């Protein structure tokens, strides 16, 4: 197992190197310069422009900038944002809990609905329920997140008044300083009556929006994995033993069908991060997604590079973890 872990870890190194290069190069390929973006119509004298570019190290050859960036990263320094002059890691750490909270809620929504839905669809294969569900999952998978979010806001929040429109907490009723950055936990720690409920209330719509695509994927994956498992001999044996259908499906079949589903859930972390960028913008959710979008428009190289590196590391980390779990569950993979 230890050798397997080492091998998997070693495999992430080239991924990181490629990532460093791509994030560095991509933002520089976008036309525009951080100083020019800052000044607008006003323009800037060539002397001041040269001075600022020098201070930011932008007058160095690109290879030198890249080298400095790599050295910096190896020292664990993600740089300083050009826009706010704050350490990239500090900004990221302040915003990331909001993204995690939202992603967890989205994933919870997707898993709690997706697995039962997929299981039922498989058990009732070919029925109207199955066909409807699969149709819906295609719709869910291809749903433009922005449109879906706005639609939900319009009906659920505005017209029916069931949830707040956006934000993380009622800013008038509740005020407490962030401790963990997770609003639900901070609300609980604050001890203010109704704060936890209000924080959960604010999570509902963004979690649905963010969880919709993973929900569709998980439902489909569960269904097909279940269909495979249901045709196995041991399931027939279980049925022959006269076990009730819910025990056969819920205990014997589902357990085995979940293995590929777990992998898919791991892979969905990337989807969640991508979705968070849009969801956070629609719901004024102060997470890293929105921050990255702003960094692009400001040409804030360090913030963007650092942010992408950090998020990618997390996605890679989660996938590694999923692979390891998989290895634990299924020893054949470990030795393969």
């Amino acid at each position, binding site marked *: 197992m230890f050798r397997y872990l080492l091998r998997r870890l070693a495999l992430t190194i080239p991924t990181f190197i490629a990532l460093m290069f791509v994030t560095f190069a991509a933002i520089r390929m976008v036309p525009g*310069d951080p100083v020019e973006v800052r000044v607008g119509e006003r323009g800037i004298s060539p002397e001041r422009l040269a001075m600022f570019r020098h201070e930011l190290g932008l007058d160095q050859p690109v290879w030198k900038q890249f080298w400095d960036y790599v050295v910096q990263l190896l020292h664990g320094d993600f740089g300083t944002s050009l826009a706010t002059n704050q350490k990239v890691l500090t900004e990221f750490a302040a915003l990331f809990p909001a993204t995690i909270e939202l992603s967890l809620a989205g994933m919870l929504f997707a898993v709690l609905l997706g697995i039962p839905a997929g299981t039922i669809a498989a058990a009732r294969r070919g029925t109207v329920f199955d066909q409807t569900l699969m149709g819906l999952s295609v719709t869910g998978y291809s749903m433009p997140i922005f449109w879906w979010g706005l639609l939900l806001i319009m009906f659920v929040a505005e017209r029916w008044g069931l949830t707040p429109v956006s934000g993380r907490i009622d800013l008038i009723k509740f005020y407490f300083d962030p401790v963990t950055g997770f609003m639900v936990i901070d609300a609980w720690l604050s001890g203010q009556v109704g704060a936890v409920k209000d924080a959960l*209330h604010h999570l509902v719509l963004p979690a649905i929006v963010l969880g919709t695509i993973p929900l569709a994927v998980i439902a489909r994956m569960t269904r097909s994995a279940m269909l495979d498992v249901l045709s196995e001999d041991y399931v027939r044996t279980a049925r022959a033993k006269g076990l009730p259908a819910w025990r056969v499906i819920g205990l014997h079949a589902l357990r085995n069908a979940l293995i590929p589903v777990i992998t898919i859930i791991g892979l969905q972390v990337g989807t969640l991060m991508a979705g968070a960028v849009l969801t956070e913008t629609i719901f004024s959710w102060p997470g890293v997604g929105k921050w990255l979008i702003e960094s692009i428009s400001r040409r804030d190289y360090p913030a963007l590079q650092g942010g992408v590196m950090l998020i990618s590391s997390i996605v890679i980390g989660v996938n590694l973890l999923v692979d390891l779990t998989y290895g634990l569950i299924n020893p054949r993979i470990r030795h393969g």
Partner: protein
Amino acid sequence: MSIPMPRSKAAIAVVFALASLAAAPLTASAKTLVYCSEGSPENFTPAINTTGTSFDAARPIYDKLTQFTRGSTTVEPGLAESWTVSPDAKVFTFKLRKGVKFHSGVNGFTPTRDFNADDVLFSFERQWKADHPYAKVSGGKYDYFADMGLSDDVQSIEKIDPLTVRLTLKKPNVTMLANLAMDFAAIHSAEYADMMAKAGKKEQFDQIPVGTGAFSFVAYQKDAVIRFKANKDYWGEKALVDDLVFAITPDPTARYSKLKAGECHFVIAPRPADLPEMQKDAALKVINQSGLNIAYWAFNTQKAPFDKKEVRQALSMAIDKSAIIKDVYLGAGQAAKNLIPPTLWSYNDAVKDYPFDQAKAKDMLAKAGVKTPLDIDLWYMPVQRPYNPNAKRIAEMMQADLAKVGVNAKLVTFEWGEYRKRLQQGEHMTGMLGWTGDNGDPDNFFFLRGCDAARPGGQNVAKWCNKAFDERLEKARTLADVKERTKLYQEMQQIEKDDAPDFKIAHSVVYEAMRKEVTGYKQSPFGSHQFNGVELK
């Protein structure tokens, strides 16, 4: 539309179980004003910022020596209760207001003295002197201080006594009084700066702000919220609410939804498409004013055939301006005939715009000896600006109009920074650009057509240098008398119109939307937001 979930009714019931109670309306705490702003400030020191978002976030906290009367471009006393200007318009002596208190209790700071000349000196010297202990803090880029000419023009800033400050310039500049009312000239506490320096936390000075303004800073969470509370000791027009909250909401559709749902009282920048519905809503109030800006299409007067006045005049008649206002600005624009907007003093309403007359335009082109079809280039900005919602669309409409008078316009654009640079170098034949005013002084617009700015790299992208215009521009800078200046500026508007260095497109019309219960709000011609004197009824 539906989400993929089984047994829809049951599922919806589960999903919305948390949403058992409808969102509570704002009335729970009537004295908190919630403003849905569009983004996070870079920090809270306006001197090192350039964006309206950052200025809005710092405005509740600070005062300036002079200030703009709420809702106008008129300069009035701020932390300086009076001033005198020397006859040569070079020496400004400010008498400071007595007994003004800095906010207490922010970041552990308790002021031991009232505001005085040391604070004024600290605030300007930080921006002016490269060796100032705070000069390099938070990046230390003082764009506005440099752009408004202070870094080059200031001879000295002296403390005469604790409540008198003298500012001496190298050359006359009467617009200085308006410049000092701008956000970059906010007055900070020197005592707080010392405290932070001693604690080795200079960066915090710009993150956790202390000022003398109508609201004091409480807390800020990036991309989420900024909280302020009313400064009960405020010397000026007081805050009429207890708390002010900026709910950071970047998406305009979400802002509108929050306004409707009562989650905010006031929103920045409503979408033009939402305006008709907003105006019909009995719970909301929509106000508007022309913005302190101008969008124009400049002719490069140093390139043939635009060196001929008649050609410029002819093309000014070839474009259907009203169609542009209607189709591109969607009502959020006002046809422009002068470089300055009508909200600015000295606006010359007697100037008559060129009529839309393509037959005459053709005729004039022929008389000017222009052979048609004439090939020109037409540059348009690649970005949306406050004064121009869609430069490309405008360019296409102009192209179609120009074709009708025998002019083939080739549309050209570059990346924004590159675009501006090339335009300022004068590489274009014709090009679109615009301007947003800074200090409410007409000089801040007219310099765009001055001879000094017509040099390569200068901001006069018409590269137009007219002696009669320029003499008046220079002279007005030396006159303290507003009437005399007005006369000169009005003449300049006529001169410019006759010589047609550019085709003036529009001033944007800025809309503000709020809930009915908000009273006392005055729309700023600068597009800035200020909440002292605003009440919730």
